[in-house]
């Protein structure tokens, strides 16, 4: 076991534990905070795998922006302090779907890679990622912008009834 292996196992355990806490806690905002821990340890995993840029992008986008968006959404609707008793959760279907998806993905990946080993790059920084995007993956990159635009327009229309009313008039 190298240092990297130990770190991988520890961070993986933290990620899985925090993810379990997200779905089991009865306090809504705390669930968001557990999500921060889960996504943060995922960033740690990327770091150990020497994907530096991806790791910090994970922190910037998911921890820094997406969870903040979630917290905003929760706080604008209802964010009680303490336990919420009226959360509806269907335990068994949830467990079935979550567990099934996890196991299925794991089986798929294990089957795909078998025991093949890949050498860690010596730090995959911005140059490598940038070259890959602008050489091989230009089209997905451009399509992504359209996806983001569509989501923004949707968010505006849904969240501002006065805006959509003006469109209809």
């Amino acid at each position, binding site marked *: 076991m190298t240092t990297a292996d130990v770190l991988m196992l520890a961070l993986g355990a933290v990620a899985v534990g925090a993810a379990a806490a997200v779905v089991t806690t009865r306090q809504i905002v705390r669930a968001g905070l557990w999500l921060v821990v889960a996504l943060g340890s995922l960033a740690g995993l990327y770091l150990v795998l*020497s994907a530096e840029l991806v790791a910090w992008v994970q922190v*910037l986008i998911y921890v820094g922006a997406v969870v903040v968006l979630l917290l905003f959404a929760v706080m*604008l609707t209802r964010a009680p302090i303490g336990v919420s008793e009226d959360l509806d959760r269907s335990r068994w279907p949830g467990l079935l779907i979550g567990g099934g998806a996890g196991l299925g993905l794991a089986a798929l990946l294990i089957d795909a890679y078998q025991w093949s080993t890949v050498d860690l790059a010596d730090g995959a920084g*911005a140059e490598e990622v940038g070259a890959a*995007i*602008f050489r091989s993956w*230009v089209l997905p990159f*451009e399509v992504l912008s359209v996806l983001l*635009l569509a989501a923004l327009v949707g968010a505006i229309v849904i969240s501002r009834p006065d805006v959509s009313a003006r469109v209809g008039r």
Partner: protein
Amino acid sequence: MGGYLGSYATLGLLLAVGVLFFLVAMTANRLLRTNRPSAAKSTTYECGLDPVGGDWAQAQIRYYVYAYLYVLFAVEAVFLFPWAVIFDDPGFGMTAVVEMGIFVGVLALGLLYAWRKRVLQWT
């Protein structure tokens, strides 16, 4: 410990030292402070009136739209970073600039939409 993980270990160590520093400060506070709790002290501050009702207040939905715009442009910035490092290299040049121009242009349409729909106007 190699150079790569060593750099991040140092970063993690600084984080740990920061946590330790504030834990010590909080413990010092716990040991040194006066403590005479009373019911009046533990009520929340409402400019002198007794608080009535719950702790939660309705806030405007615009905050959500701003947070969404933040996500959008954070993603854009994240793609601009690797582009900024490599666009100058041989083999990219004008093509990379035009590709990024299209990407930025499409996202700028989103900003323009929000602008025209007066979402950015804080009334």
